């Protein structure tokens, strides 16, 4: 599925989202480069999920521009994937869920099975391949959602608080899977409000508060010496409002 030119970097220019008179995302400008894991950090209601949906194209900004280096349209859409906070699994078996995006992309039937088996094994779901996806445990469902997103080898994987409803063991499995996906060359853009998770996963932090991008810093620098008072307060565990 290799293509000559990358769709990255992704450039946001003064991206703004307003709804019912409220400004939810306020003039965010940023470049997301091809390499690494970018974590969008911030308290609840900061606009993290909205920013992810804007980047992925599920929402349109009311002002500003979102430009992929690889152009626009179908090709760009098919080179990215997203995993939602609550995984939306099809009412089919785990294997059929992974087969589905391959089917949508017109991958020949004969080539699908190997990719499906590999993705299932990768996510540690080989044993439950034939079980209905919706009876799997929460952690298994989210790993399945990641495997389904990864099976098309996207250049960018957006993840929206993928572990927010999971226990520590399940969270660990998800994080390992995300790291493996990143190692295989996929750009990770992920939201979290969990500081520990941000420490474990981030190459760089985009700190969001009230819909504004307050700072963007390499992870090590961010945790050692945040540049804004809000980020410092958030790191200390103060309640931001």
């Amino acid at each position, binding site marked *: 599925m290799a293509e000559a030119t990358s769709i990255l970097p992704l450039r946001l220019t003064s991206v703004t989202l307003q709804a019912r008179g409220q400004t939810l995302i306020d003039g965010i400008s940023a470049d997301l480069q091809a390499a690494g894991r970018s974590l969008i950090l911030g308290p609840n209601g900061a606009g993290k999920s909205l920013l992810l*949906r804007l980047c*992925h*194209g*599920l929402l349109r900004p009311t002002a500003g521009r979102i430009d992929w280096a690889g152009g626009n349209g*179908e090709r760009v*859409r*098919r080179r990215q*994937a*997203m995993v*939602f906070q609550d995984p*939306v699994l*099809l*009412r*089919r078996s785990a294997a059929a869920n992974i087969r*589905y*995006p391959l089917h*949508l*992309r017109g991958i020949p039937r004969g080539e699908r099975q190997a990719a499906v088996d590999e993705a299932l094994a990768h996510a540690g779901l080989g044993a439950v391949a034939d079980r*209905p996806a*919706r*009876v799997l445990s929460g952690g298994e469902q989210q790993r399945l959602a990641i495997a389904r997103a990864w099976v098309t080898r996207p250049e960018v994987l957006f993840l929206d608080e993928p572990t927010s409803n999971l226990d520590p063991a399940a969270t660990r499995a998800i994080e390992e899977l995300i790291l493996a996906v990143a190692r295989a060359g996929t750009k990770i853009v992920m939201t979290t409000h969990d500081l520990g998770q941000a420490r474990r996963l981030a190459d760089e932090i985009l700190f969001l508060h009230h819909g504004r991008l307050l700072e963007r810093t390499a992870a090590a620098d961010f945790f050692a010496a945040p540049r804004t008072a809000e980020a410092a307060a958030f790191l200390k565990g103060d309640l931001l409002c």
Partner: protein
Amino acid sequence: MPRYPLTDLTAAFALALDMLLRVDRDLLEIVGLSLRVSLSAVGLAALIGLPLGAAVALFRFPGRLAVHALLTAFMGLPPVVVGLIVYLLLSRAGPLGVLGLLFTPAAMIIAQCLLITPIIAALSAQTVADLHEEYDEQLRSLAAGPGQTLVTLLWDGRFRLLTAILAGFGRAVAEVGAVMIVGGNINHATRVMTTAIALETSKGNLALALALGIILIALALGVNLAAMAIRDATRARYG
């Protein structure tokens, strides 16, 4: 066939059971035609109604709201009126008179199909709309096209849609007005359970009417039980 006075219900009931047990030929023929007509009608109606309902639920096209409103309103179409319309279409002077379908099982299938297509379409529109709310972002994220979305939602709603189809079958097999008008209740040709019950009752031949009535009730019960069983089983399995 022996005749009984109206008061002799027990005897009629006994004879009805007897006919059921020894698998009376006339009875079998009537039940068979009923099933053939109604199953064909429900099959056709599903072929039309499922995609139609899904399209109404998913796509924004001119007149969409009007179509949706019509489908919902037509869920309660009076069978005799549907029968009358199909009669006018198929009668020798009508636009489709050349086909020579009036008073044949084909005419009955057409009438029942018209009767239940709105039911299946309206119920599947609801099912698909509910499912779409849940799946919309995920399917857009996976870059599914409009046609792919429609097929996906129909397939993932398959068990709920099956209950819509069963509802259509239940209505088709139990209606009498439409098949009476376009079929004519001709013995050995277009006589189905409901028209036979109407006729035999008016003739005072209660045994055959009762036997058919028992089968019809059993079918209706069976259809509803099946619908409930499907709903419960899939809720447990697929969430």
